[in-house]
């Protein structure tokens, strides 16, 4: 009996939007998955069988993610899915994959307070990026914060965490505004006027999707200087900075596990491979990198189980490590989240994120941490940012320690 190539392939479902408000970031995540799959297939597949992606476009509509997850499992016979950016989309997929006992990879930072045995979480939880960012901002810009965000669960929860850290550091939140995910120019204008009135030292933005580009551009157009009062974010990424343009983007800050400018042999290889397949690596984001390394970790586990059985795969995934472009990552067997690097980068005049600070070792994910401690020993390590992974580091790490 001979099997057709499709029958003998390992199938994996992909749920990222290529249309709608979060299409820019989700397209970069889908590319990350497709890149990893083509690398694996070019190297001979997994145990001699190719990986075959089955992708749908949920159009950035949360309920569509749930419907399409059901379709992937019921009609396409898929038992492993990777996808979702917004928490609202993940919440739609969750009951489906739990009921069907499917394995689900979620390569996006989110607000925490979740654990499902069926999910492997590849993005940062607040304890992995909020505290280092807050410390950096208070040291370098001041303690008066202004919060602006899209109106859904992630921004509200991020701001709750951030507000707590800022207060611990003796700072104040001088204003807090939310606007709809499909914010209009007037919505943004109103917030900018409020910012001008409140005169914060730094703006913490949890705006996601298209609103991000409009916010940064409008902020620049209103004559604000990002070098003096930057917008700091956990979500604003390379793809969005590219769209904003270097002039309006320069000086703003983002905290993430990965930036495309970090120097390591894994990252060089990743970017070269990405460029070969997609033409340019300018829009590579940390969420793309997470999608990329999660797909590789899936293939690694699959190579050991030689089966798509959820329970067997999970056994091999928990505790697994991988040399990702960001550095070593490890899936925490305690909570299915991932030990990640933590970096803070500023956009330079050429519109590239340059890493300013980073922690020495990956941070353990702590998805149920209600209020991170500003004085947590784990976060203090960041002052000694190492120079070896930093491109164009003008002062050496030793000099920076002294200064």
């Amino acid at each position, binding site marked *: 009996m001979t099997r057709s190539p499709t029958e003998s392939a390992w199938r994996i479902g992909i749920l990222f939007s290529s249309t709608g408000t979060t299409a820019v970031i989700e397209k970069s995540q889908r590319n990350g998955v497709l890149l990893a799959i083509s690398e694996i297939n070019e190297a001979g597949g997994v145990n001699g069988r190719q990986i075959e992606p089955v992708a749908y476009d949920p159009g950035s509509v949360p309920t569509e993610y749930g419907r399409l997850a059901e379709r992937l499992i019921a009609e396409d016979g898929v038992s492993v899915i990777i996808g979702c950016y917004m928490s609202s989309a993940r919440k739609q997929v969750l009951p489906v994959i739990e009921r069907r006992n499917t394995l689900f990879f979620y390569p996006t930072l989110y607000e925490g307070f979740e654990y*499902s045995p069926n999910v492997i979480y590849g993005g940062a939880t607040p304890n992995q990026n909020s505290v280092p960012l807050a410390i950096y901002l208070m040291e370098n810009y001041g303690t008066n914060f202004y919060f602006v965000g899209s109106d859904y669960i992630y921004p509200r929860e991020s701001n709750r965490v951030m507000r707590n850290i800022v207060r611990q550091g003796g700072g104040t939140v001088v204003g807090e505004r939310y606007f709809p995910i499909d914010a209009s120019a007037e919505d943004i204008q109103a917030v900018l006027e409020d910012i001008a009135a409140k005169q914060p030292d730094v703006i913490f933005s949890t705006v996601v999707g298209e609103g991000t580009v409009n916010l940064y551009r409008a902020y620049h157009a209103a004559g604000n200087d990002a070098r003096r009062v930057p917008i700091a974010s956990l979500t604003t990424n390379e793809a969005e900075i590219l769209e904003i343009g270097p002039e309006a983007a320069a000086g703003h800050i983002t905290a993430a596990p990965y930036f495309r400018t970090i120097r390591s042999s894994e990252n060089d290889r990743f970017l070269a491979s990405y460029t070969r397949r997609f033409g340019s690596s300018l829009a590579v984001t940390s969420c793309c990198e997470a999608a990329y390394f999660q797909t590789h970790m899936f293939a690694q586990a699959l190579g050991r189980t030689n089966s798509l059985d959820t329970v067997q795969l999970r056994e091999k995934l928990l505790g697994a490590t991988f040399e990702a472009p960001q550095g070593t990552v490890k899936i925490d067997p*305690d909570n299915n989240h991932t030990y990640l690097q933590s970096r803070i980068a500023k956009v330079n005049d050429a519109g590239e994120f340059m890493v300013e600070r980073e922690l020495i070792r990956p941070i353990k994910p*702590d998805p149920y941490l*209600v209020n991170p401690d500003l004085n947590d020993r784990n976060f203090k390590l960041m002052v000694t940012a190492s120079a070896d992974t930093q491109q164009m580091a003008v002062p050496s790490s030793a000099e920076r320690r002294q200064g």
Partner: protein
Amino acid sequence: MTDLINDLRSLNVLVLHRRDADCDDLVQQISRIGCNVETAWPPPETLPANVDVVFVEIKESVPVGMQKLFQDSALNRPTLIGIIGYENPSVLLGLLDLNVQTVVSKPLRAFGVMSSILMARRIWVQRREDLANLEKLRLKLENVQIVTEAKFILMRHHGINESEAYKVIRTHAMSRRTSTIEIANAIINADGLLNNFQLKK
């Protein structure tokens, strides 16, 4: 009430359940949340010190030892959360007998454990506050009754009105640096004694 959320991680949790897959799932989720968690099976004769929350499996009959463990009022007892695998009347009766604050059901899901702990904790804290308030009110009512009785004695013996009687009690309390309750009690005791003398004559 937001303190309840902030304090979740400082809770000491005890799980009284057989060491099986359900128990492991529950213990892992509690430690993911960040609480200190221990298990004990079979149930110990006395609860370890400093336990704030106890998860306890409740089946169709609650063993006598278990009932003894939790017979104290909410003032002296940790927060109780029942773990149930059935919903029949015998199990429900067990929940009422042990007076649990909330219930989690089997098969256990990680999602929901945190809110169950929080809700149970809130009900327990409120119950304690209510009991303390109730005790305070009971004492106050008792005191009012005592003072009233003392006032009536003074009114009867001296032919004065109620506010004058109260003034007498208060003046005495102030000059002796004591409470009106003590003076009132002294008046009532003295009156009782004097009545006894009269009867023996």
